């Protein structure tokens, strides 16, 4: 009922099916924990390489156990609950940011052979039962991701408020404003993907992107089908949603001590960081699934087998994880007004306009337009939007002049009634 498309649930739901579901949940959980360990080590190692340092090198080979050592240290530190905090909310907040981070990964297809054309794409056989390499495939998978990313705000917001202290509150107000703003751009760029593919299920999204693609050379990934712009918008908005540099105003050390987690110590602090790094991994996985075909590789590279899906998925995932580290090492932090300008004045209008263009092309496809009609449509749309932008600037200019006239009145008559 909840998981409709997975062939595991076609027949009766008995003990073996339950076992497979539990196995998938445990594997996803363990994978995420190990991936976080790896991700933190990877971050530190790559950043130190980029800064010409050695980085962690003592615990284990290449310092790979450094995260484990950090985790153990955090476990044994004193767990402080500040006097002025709201105890229940203070203790609840870390879990509220951790749980959505875990849940999003459940809808990501991580492997399977998607280049089969016999309607069983992406299915693998576990103990004689056909199933997807994906914990759950809800029919509204993409919306599930949006819902979980909007819930992640609560962890940050309540942590800041529950601490009963000034800087965490400032940090959390910043964070929630930032995340709410960028969620709009995120949702609009996802809408472009949904418009082009016509489905909300993550599994079907991957199936639609697999196969021969355009002329068997360029893979049929949504990054090409939606024309790059939604991908770029999603990448920027996703980075902002993660509070990852250059959008890490939430924990701007120079201004806010540590932001929303200033008052946290010990295991609760560790939970926040677990959530943050886990969100990076899941966000990278979602980008890969939505825009880059997830486990389905380019068409010219198609040895059969479920492991090839796994390989492609983790290869693409690593590219994005490296990209996040690269951003952290390279870019300075945004100023707050620049952040809001970028989100509201550039990304949202841009993705909205691109959505309209895609919708027009989609309508044209249904009406049977040729390439000439499509070109005319795109040019016409470009012209209309240029006129709109020109009108907008004209309006801004006349508003300024109006304000000048008001100032003139103020200087001659003493005061303007509406601005006192």
């Amino acid at each position: 009922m909840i998981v409709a498309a997975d062939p595991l649930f076609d027949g009766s739901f008995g003990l073996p099916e339950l076992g497979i579901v539990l196995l998938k949940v445990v594997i996803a959980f363990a994978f995420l924990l190990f991936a976080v360990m790896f991700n933190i080590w990877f971050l530190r190692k790559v950043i130190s390489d980029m800064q010409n340092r050695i980085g962690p090198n003592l615990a284990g080979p290449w310092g790979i156990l450094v995260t484990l050592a950090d985790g153990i240290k955090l476990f044994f530190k004193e767990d402080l609950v500040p006097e002025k905090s709201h105890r229940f909310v203070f203790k609840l907040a870390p879990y509220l940011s951790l749980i959505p981070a875990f849940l999003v990964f459940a809808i990501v297809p991580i492997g399977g052979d998607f280049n089969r054309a016999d309607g069983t794409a992406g299915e693998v056989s576990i103990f004689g039962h056909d199933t997807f390499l994906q914990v759950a495939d809800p029919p509204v998978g993409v919306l599930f991701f949006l819902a979980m990313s909007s819930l992640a705000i609560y962890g940050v917001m309540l942590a800041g408020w529950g601490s009963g202290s000034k800087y965490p509150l400032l940090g959390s107000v910043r964070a929630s404003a930032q995340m709410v703003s960028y969620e709009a751009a995120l949702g609009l760029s996802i809408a472009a993907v949904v418009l082009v593919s016509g489905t909300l299920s993550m599994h079907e999204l991957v199936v639609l992107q697999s196969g021969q693609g355009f002329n068997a050379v360029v893979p049929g990934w949504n990054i090409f089908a939606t024309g790059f712009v939604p991908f770029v918008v999603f990448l920027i908005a996703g980075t902002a949603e993660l509070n990852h540099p250059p959008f890490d105003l939430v924990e701007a050390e120079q201004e806010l001590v540590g932001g929303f987690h200033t008052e946290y110590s010990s295991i609760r602090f560790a939970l926040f960081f677990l959530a943050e790094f886990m969100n990076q991994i899941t966000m990278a996985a979602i980008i890969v699934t939505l825009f880059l075909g997830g486990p389905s590789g380019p068409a010219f590279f198609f040895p059969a087998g479920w492991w090839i899906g796994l390989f492609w998925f983790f290869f693409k995932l690593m590219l994005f994880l490296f990209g996040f580290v690269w951003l952290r090492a390279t870019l300075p932090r945004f100023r707050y007004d620049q952040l809001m300008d970028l989100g509201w004045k550039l990304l949202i209008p841009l993705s909205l306009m691109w959505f309209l263009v895609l919708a027009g092309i989609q309508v044209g496809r249904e009406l049977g337009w040729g390439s000439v009609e499509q070109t005319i449509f795109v040019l016409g749309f470009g012209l209309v939007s240029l006129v709109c932008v020109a009108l907008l600037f004209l309006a801004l200019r006349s508003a300024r002049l109006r304000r000048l006239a008001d100032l003139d009145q103020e200087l001659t008559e003493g005061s303007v009634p509406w601005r006192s």
Partner: protein
Amino acid sequence: MTEVIVFVVGAIIVLSGAVGVVASPNPVHSALFLIQTLFGVAVLFVLQEAHFLAAVQIIVYAGAIVILFLFVIMLLGVDTADNWSVEPIGGQRPLAVLVGAALFGCGLALLIVMSDKLTGIVRDGGERALDNQFTDVERIGRVLFTDYALSFEITAALLTIAVIGAVVLTRKLRREEFLADLERVSMELPAAVPDEINEAH
């Protein structure tokens, strides 16, 4: 059987959350209980196979509206617990209990008498009113953009107007910002600025 169990669990989540919203003295805790209620309702939607409504319930209500509530609560600084030992208006509480009980009774009676018509499902026959040709997303989209297209558009326009109106009404320029703006304009359009203003600043 599964349906009944999920319904009972969902109903308990919804009702306990609703009681919590009213009963907790701290507004932030009330908002948290409201999220609990919204989640319970989402579970009930999923139970009715209205997956889209469930997702939208979480995204819009839990993800945006309650966040705004929390924003307002935190920014206005009303996040202190209420003192309930004093009754603000005399005789209010017994009256509230009475009216509440009466409303509950009326609602229950209506539900019992009218349940056949309310849900659109015939109680004894078990016949379903909806066909399964389309998914719930398609069905909602179809209805919104055909039968209710006009009211949909009008609502969108109304919300946009409300947002713009709020921005216009609340935007106050501070003097320094205004002068900085003036400087920028007089550099761009020197002819548009009267001379006496330029001299005055």
